[in-house]
């Protein structure tokens, strides 16, 4: 256990990196996800088709395989990334695939009557989306969005495999140096538990606020 205490500082730095990557990639993939969801629902036929194929591809392949194709695979054709760049691109591309579906089903969950009522009042489709549909869809989307952020956080554990120096990377180095696989991996688990817990709490608070009108 004494060995493990040496690693608390290193872990904290690694955790900060994982958490930061999660936040940045979540924001980016949500912005792209909203656009893609609207395109998937209301865009021209070709766009709708392309987006739905993209979603299937992202959901159909193991995350680790996607990361390896991006980092190691593209190397074969001369495209190289730094570990950080690869990590960010991977998390965003992967995240968009999931965010699209969350936004799409959230938008579809809003009752048809709401659209009709807005149209009957003469609201434009843009205003209807912004002022009527989206605020209501948000309530339905928050629980899956929270799990989505946790999923992205968990995905960061794989980044040590491309040499990104996060918690898992430090844990592996530590185990190599000290042979203390017990405490070091359990500590990594605890670090992720704490981060998931924080995200879950934030999600719950937002849900409560968003659902206030119900």
């Amino acid at each position, binding site marked *: 256990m004494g060995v493990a205490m040496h690693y608390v500082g290193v872990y904290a730095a690694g955790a900060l990196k994982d958490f930061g990557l999660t936040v940045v990639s979540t924001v980016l993939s949500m912005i792209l996800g909203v656009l893609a969801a609207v395109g998937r629902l209301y865009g021209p036929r070709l766009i709708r088709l392309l987006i739905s194929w993209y979603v299937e591809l992202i959901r159909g392949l*193991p995350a*680790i395989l996607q990361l390896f194709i991006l980092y190691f695979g593209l190397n074969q054709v001369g495209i190289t990334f730094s570990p950080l760049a690869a990590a960010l691109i991977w998390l965003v591309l992967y995240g968009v695939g999931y965010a699209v579906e969350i936004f799409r089903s959230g938008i579809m969950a809003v009752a048809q009557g709401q659209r009709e009522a807005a149209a009957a009042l003469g609201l434009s489709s843009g205003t209807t989306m912004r002022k009527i549909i989206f605020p209501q869809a948000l309530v339905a989307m928050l629980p899956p969005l929270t799990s989505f952020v946790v999923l992205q956080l968990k995905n960061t554990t794989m980044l040590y495999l491309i040499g990104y120096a996060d918690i898992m990377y430090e*844990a592996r180095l530590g185990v190599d140096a000290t042979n203390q696989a017990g405490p070091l*991996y359990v500590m990594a688990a605890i670090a992720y538990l704490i981060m998931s817990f924080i995200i879950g709490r934030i999600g719950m608070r937002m849900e409560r606020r968003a659902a206030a009108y119900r």
Partner: protein
Amino acid sequence: MHTLWSAWVQYLPDYWQGVRVTLELTGASLLVAIVLGFLLALARLSTLRVLDFMATAYVEIVRAIPVLIILFICYYSLAQAGLKLSGPVAAVVGLGGFYATLYGEIFRGAIMGVDRGQKEAAAALGMPEGLVMRKIVLPQAFFAILPPATNQLSNLIKDTSLVFTIAVADLMFQANAASANNFLPLDMLLLAGVIYFLFYLILSKLLARWELNVQRRRG
């Protein structure tokens, strides 16, 4: 195109080995997840506070830990603590133990989703609790279970791709080995991708259609 094809053909036997390992791991982990998940669901629905508490704690903690760390704990940490599991066993324990939390929640939700009137009607006929569960609640919960359970199965297959990190020679392991051998990582990873995607298509499209048919027949 020609080189891609010949590289694929050359490694096909290795990949076939990997696919078998992946499917065996998936099957064994699924079995563990379903059995343990069902017990967890029953414990969480139980009127015994202790059981409910223990099952809830297990579910909430385990499902918040990334699968990769769970695998490392099962393989490396347990070994340090004196419980040395082989790679495949550690993989089944880890994946099964993790997916049990997800299957447990699916079962629990489906059981709770059965209309209260159904349980009342069965009780009014004098049926004891066990019989009500077996003959009335579970058969109806089954159709609510199928879609999310299929969905998690396809996630489980994808997550087996992490076991190469604990020295299990699954499909992903073979793809990495082949890449290291012929320095064509893109080609070799893409072949693995095609295979994983086939599994995904089979599960998401074929099973979804079958479910729809079953449900329609019940009308």
